[in-house]
């Protein structure tokens, strides 16, 4: 069933996550600020809402869920599979004030093997499909990119610039950068070709094997190509391999992915293998997860629910309350919503409009 409200979408996502055995992770709204101060680059916005707790500790309203889950995960217990639906607090674009943002997602932390990676990618694709609109999940592999960066001999600044240019689908900029870094033309050509891969998963797997044989570690290439083949078999054209999908190299290490839904101008789902973050937080295990930005999907539902209520009932000022109540009760039979007011409100839409007559009868207007 296609969700009509954000509540229905949340229920659909919950079902997707729970059917795969993920448990709900409910967390407190606050966390010690120190956690975010140490991992500012991982956050979408550096600005964090803080306050001093009664015991003097500097606390923050959560700007992110992943950091809290990673901090609290128990490493000795195999793999932990959890999902969440929480509000986070972030500065809006261009820093025009803080906003409360509704976010759902999942994290798989611990002994993460290739099956876990495929499972999470599959759940990301299913989450997008549950929105009920044309959608696409784009997958990339930062490990393969980094191996080519090493082969190109890029400086740390060159690597950051290369990630930015690849993310912009800007091959001419990337070519100029590689020339300025004195990269061997043959390797530079490989990196530019890799950055331009944007194909259905099965086709991309073939291209990658051809392009990267002898250029990267065989094991990494085989695993990613296998994952691509699996995604192609399960989800067809919904999943593509697009190497312009990138993330912060200090946090993300292997597969990264973003999801798009037609009608929403930016990515509505974002995730990846964040083993770099685990290392930074002194955890030895691996992790993968994603978040769905429910606030970005909300405008889709608003346009679908074009009526404010099923019925508008307008009553005359002299009508007795019990007569009005009885008329409204009759109209609401069968679960219809009824707004009962003295005059027609401006800027609202109703399926049907009724007027209460002097005799206490509701007469349909149009």
């Amino acid at each position: 069933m296609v969700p009509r409200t954000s509540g229905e979408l949340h229920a659909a996502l919950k079902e997707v996550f729970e059917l795969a055995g993920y448990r709900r992770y409910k967390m407190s709204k606050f966390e010690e600020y120190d956690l975010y101060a140490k991992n500012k680059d991982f956050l979408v916005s550096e600005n964090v809402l803080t306050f001093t707790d009664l015991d003097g500790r500097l606390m923050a309203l959560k700007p992110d869920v992943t950091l809290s889950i990673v901090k609290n995960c128990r490493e000795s217990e195999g793999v932990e599979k959890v999902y969440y639906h929480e509000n986070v607090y972030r500065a809006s674009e261009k820093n025009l004030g803080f906003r409360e943002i509704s976010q759902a997602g999942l994290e798989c932390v611990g002994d993460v093997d290739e099956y876990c990676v495929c499972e999470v990618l599959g759940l990301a694709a299913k989450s997008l499909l549950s929105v009920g609109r044309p959608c696409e999940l784009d997958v990339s592999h930062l490990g393969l990119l980094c191996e080519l960066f090493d082969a190109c001999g890029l400086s740390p600044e060159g690597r950051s610039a290369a990630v930015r240019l690849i993310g912009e689908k800007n091959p001419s900029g990337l070519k100029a950068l590689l020339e300025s870094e004195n990269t061997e033309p043959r390797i530079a050509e490989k990196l530019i070709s890799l950055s331009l891969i944007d194909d259905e998963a099965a086709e991309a797997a073939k291209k990658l094997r051809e392009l990267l044989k002898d250029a990267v570690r065989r094991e990494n290439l085989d695993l990613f190509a296998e994952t691509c083949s699996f995604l192609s078999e399960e989800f067809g054209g919904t999943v593509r391999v697009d190497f312009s999908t990138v993330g912060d190299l200090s946090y993300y290490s292997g597969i990264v992915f973003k999801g798009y839904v037609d009608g929403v101008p930016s990515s509505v789902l974002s995730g990846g293998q964040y083993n770099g973050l685990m290392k930074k937080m002194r955890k030895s295990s691996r992790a993968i997860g994603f978040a769905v930005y429910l606030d970005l999907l909300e405008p889709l539902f608003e346009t679908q629910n074009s009526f404010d209520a099923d019925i508008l009932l307008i009553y005359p000022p002299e009508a007795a309350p019990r007569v009005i109540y009885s008329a409204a009760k009759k109209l609401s039979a069968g679960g219809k919503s009824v707004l009962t007011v003295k005059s027609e409100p401006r800027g609202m839409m109703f399926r049907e409009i009724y007027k209460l007559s002097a005799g206490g009868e509701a007469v349909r207007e149009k």
Partner: protein
Amino acid sequence: MKNDMINIALPKGRLGDNVYEMFSRAGWRCPEIENPGRRLTFENPETGVRYFWVKPSDVAIYVEKGAADIGVAGKDILLEYSPDVYELLDTGLGRCRMAVAAPKNFREDLKKTLRVATKFPNIAKRHYSSLGRDIDIIKLNGSIELAPILGLSDVIVDIVETGATLRQNDLEVFDTLFEISARLIANKSGYRFKREKINMIKSSLSALKGENND
């Protein structure tokens, strides 16, 4: 609006005229735009494109927010506002450079905070921060060359095309920050659902690019 049309944001002004001319030569002509009247959007149902003119500095916003699928914006605007868009092609049009200029007799006093007048505060901030130089930014919206003449600033960071305005006002270029040209940009989500057509437009423009460079 029909969803299969490609919405294209063009920058108003001389650059925009040249950009439309390039689109037209590449096979994306729109007769409506050549006789505009009072219309604000111009469609060619045969080729499936819809054009509209916006302020050059707004093109990137229209594209980032998805009101336009693609657009053409100067590299200066992209570096100043850092919109989250794809930069698919350097069209080669509108070539100029971002430069630091100052009065001809200017001698920089490194002991003082440098006063910089500019329309591009983010670009200026990044440039001087990479040099470790302490600066005071004076954000102006036009007539930037006036600032050092009247003592409002020591230098300016601005676009230089031929340098004629600078010369007429006894100013000269002290440093070039980067070269500028007009870029074809695309919305990241729109690109996914209209990939084939956007790539067709990109390829047809790319084929003409050599002519712009001549």
